[in-house]
């Protein structure tokens, strides 16, 4: 029921201002400016990219189910929008179990961390038993490379490292429920003991495969959060975290634009150099504004206009660009409104 609850959360927050597929893109973690910005605007950034494997067909089926169960209702057939129903609200409020997510923040870190942990544990336990012909459960060249380097450093002292991993993991897992800790441990692979598949875990713990997946992601996010707060207490687990700056969260094309932007080129100049449309560069700037605390918004929207836009947002009770645009003077462009929204949401999150 965790997955259903998260879906309803999403629909409740976007209030039918975006199509249903925008939530699909959000959960999948689509690297588009629109999706990242939506995540901020609707405070859905915790859920960004927490279900990277979901398929559109399955997502659509799930939405249909929710509509059929009267938890979700169609708003506009043509725009493909849905909203949470009254019954849905009641149902959702009765769900006591809630999970911790930091999807957008840990977008890159999640898979890297769990991949390194799984493969390192499998490698160390097998090597401790002098067994070198095992089939790795993780198949990712970068992660393999990291584990190989790590293994070279600690070879011979497997027991010491395993002991450390044990005590560090134990500290992390103590913060979870018994059931969650069990699920996490059952997923691990060791010497001649392969971990359980999602379906097997689902059966063992009498949950859906979706929920098992989400619980595992949530556990990883909680561990990452713990490590961030107190990395000195977790010397071994902390090495498994990929520490890139938050700017790496920007899409590739936008980060290219960002370099020119930092060199002081104007939008027109960047558009010329990169042979991209002006509107694309605008998209990039909005994305950069989301992450760069020093973004000079005043260069693009003067303070007066910023205030006018902020007032319009309040009056419109909506983040729908069209609604806001109608309430401000004609000279203010969609680009300026989006920039203000981006910065506004960043401050809201920072203030929390």
């Amino acid at each position, binding site marked *: 029921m965790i997955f259903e609850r998260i879906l309803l959360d999403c629909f409740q927050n976007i209030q039918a201002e975006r199509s249903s597929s925008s939530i699909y893109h959000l959960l999948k973690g689509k690297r588009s400016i629109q999706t990242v910005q939506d995540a901020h605007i609707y405070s859905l950034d915790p859920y960004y990219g927490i279900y990277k494997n979901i398929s559109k067909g399955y997502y659509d089926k799930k939405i249909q189910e929710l509509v059929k169960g009267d938890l979700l209702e169609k708003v506009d057939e043509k725009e493909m929008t849905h909203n949470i129903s009254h019954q849905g609200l009641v149902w959702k409020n009765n769900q006591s179990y809630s999970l911790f997510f930091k999807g957008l923040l840990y977008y890159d870190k999640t898979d890297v961390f769990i991949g390194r942990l799984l493969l390192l544990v499998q490698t160390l336990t097998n090597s401790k038993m002098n067994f070198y*012909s095992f089939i790795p459960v993780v*198949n990712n060249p970068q992660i393999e490379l990291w584990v190989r380097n790590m293994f070279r450093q600690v070879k011979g002292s497997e*027991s010491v490292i395993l002991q450390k991993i044990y005590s560090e993991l134990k500290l992390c897992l103590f913060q979870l429920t018994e059931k969650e800790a069990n699920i*996490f441990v059952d997923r691990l692979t060791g010497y*001649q003991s392969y971990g359980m598949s*999602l379906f097997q875990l689902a059966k063992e713990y009498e949950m859906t495969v979706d929920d098992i997946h989400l619980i595992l992601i949530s556990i990883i996010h909680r561990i990452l959060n713990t490590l961030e707060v107190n990395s000195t207490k977790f010397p071994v687990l902390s090495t498994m975290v990929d520490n890139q700056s938050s700017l790496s969260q920007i899409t590739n094309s936008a980060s290219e634009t960002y370099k020119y932007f930092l060199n002081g080129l104007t939008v027109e100049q960047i558009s010329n150099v990169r042979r991209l449309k002006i509107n694309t560069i605008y998209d990039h700037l909005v994305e950069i504004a989301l992450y760069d605390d020093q973004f000079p918004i005043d260069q693009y929207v003067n303070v007066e206009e910023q205030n006018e836009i902020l007032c319009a947002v309040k009056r419109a009770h909506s983040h729908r660009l069209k609604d806001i645009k109608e309430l401000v003077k004609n000279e203010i462009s969609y680009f300026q409104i989006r920039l203000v929204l981006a910065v506004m949401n960043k401050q809201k999150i920072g203030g929390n």
Partner: protein
Amino acid sequence: MELDLEHELLKHFHFSTFRPGQKEIIQDVLNGKDVLGILPTGSGKSICYQLPAIIMDGLTIVVSPLISLMMDQVKEMKANHFKKVIAINSFMNFEERREIYRKIHTYKLLFISPELLNQTFIIKLFQGVKVSLFVIDEAHCISQWGHEFRPDYLKLSSIIEKLGTPPTLALSATATPEVQTDIITSLNKPKMVKHIYPMDKPNIAFCVERVENDQEKSEILIPLLKKYKIPTLIYFSSRLAAENFTRYLSENLQDRRVGFYHAGMEPMDRVMIQQQFMNNQLDIVCCTSAFGMGINKSNIRLIIHYHIPLQLESFIQEVGRAGRDGKSSVSLLLFSKSDMLLPNNLIKNELPDENILSNVFRYLRDLSLQDMDLPNDDVQIQNLLNLNETQWRFLRYQLEKHNLINGIKIMDYSEIWKDIYQSIFHVVKSRVKLKIGKLTEINKWIHEDKCLRDTLYQSFQPVHNGAEFQCCSNCGFTWSEWSPEQQEIESSSELNWENKLKKLLLLDNSR
């Protein structure tokens, strides 16, 4: 210098003797001959190119039809400490591919799909290295009359020439005499040395049970699986059926560990299920035909077909995974009349029907009249025209063959288009006919009164070795006389997570 092949085998693979056929094939390959090797499933076909790849200078290229199969082979070889192996596939991103191109000289063995091998830049890449051996795995894909025809396999002979005509080794587990001829003709190598080994399995008994419906299948299987605690595979024709039956079994067989496997699962889950089964952590796997290729478990005792495969070739391959250790094993096929509906649909979906075909032609004509190209992305085309991957692959090959398209370019619209349409439509009809024929063949075999072993192998080989244990349900097979060694199932002691973690990390004091 005479190489001591047994010594090399021991050194690299830790086997002291070759299985029948391996040494003969390897010797001919090392002597630079072109070889056609037909070796039964489970006889260690891959050693026939792995060992030469290690021994010979230069690069061995293996053409393989399935990405999952390639990945399994690479993983297994790496696990056996042979690291100079790589699989190139179309899912790799630019960075990963560039890394491979940069390091191409360091590899000894490279797996690739026939589709990718047809790309000019790939050929250029290989032309820069010494290709010492060219291997065609699953070579029956070459034959129009084979059960798994893959159009791109037909272009291999020109590729071999472009690579400087290295010795060529074509391997298959199933090939009727006519398919063998097709392989040799298509590769344009009339002097190929043939090494044909019988595919019959004397240690497997064949059992066919006709039932009325799925309910009866369950009524047979539950008591049977309760009685035999042995490594078991159950084949289904759909992913959903495999999943559902897994659920059903785990509810009804409390003391047995059941899992399922199909190509729609996450890669990590697939490795876990495969390896749990290898490792005796799982007793029964419900699977689709995706499972088993590259699986080297020697003590699978029972192979059940809950649904019939589409042809005898697949059946023989799947059954061949039982009893690789030579001990008595059983194949059980359950058949109800309604089972014929599903394969009929599967066959029809594999190829474009008349509707789809005229749709595609209309689309191409419109593009051609507007002087436009095809989209560069095959997936986009598939979605646009509502085709599945197999259908589009088939159509692309046919359209290119008639020069109606060339890459993304479309031929000018003219009267010839009608002829091309007719000719492709004709191919579709004859392919469907062939597949239906294959299905009829297996249906006929199921309803056979004579010895099932005789009739199963008769179109593949003139004689077979006979049964080592019980023969078949038509020759008086009885379950009561079959008592394979039962497997001990470790009772998983209920530990709390701390102790489980301790045990997993090898920190409990019992070790």
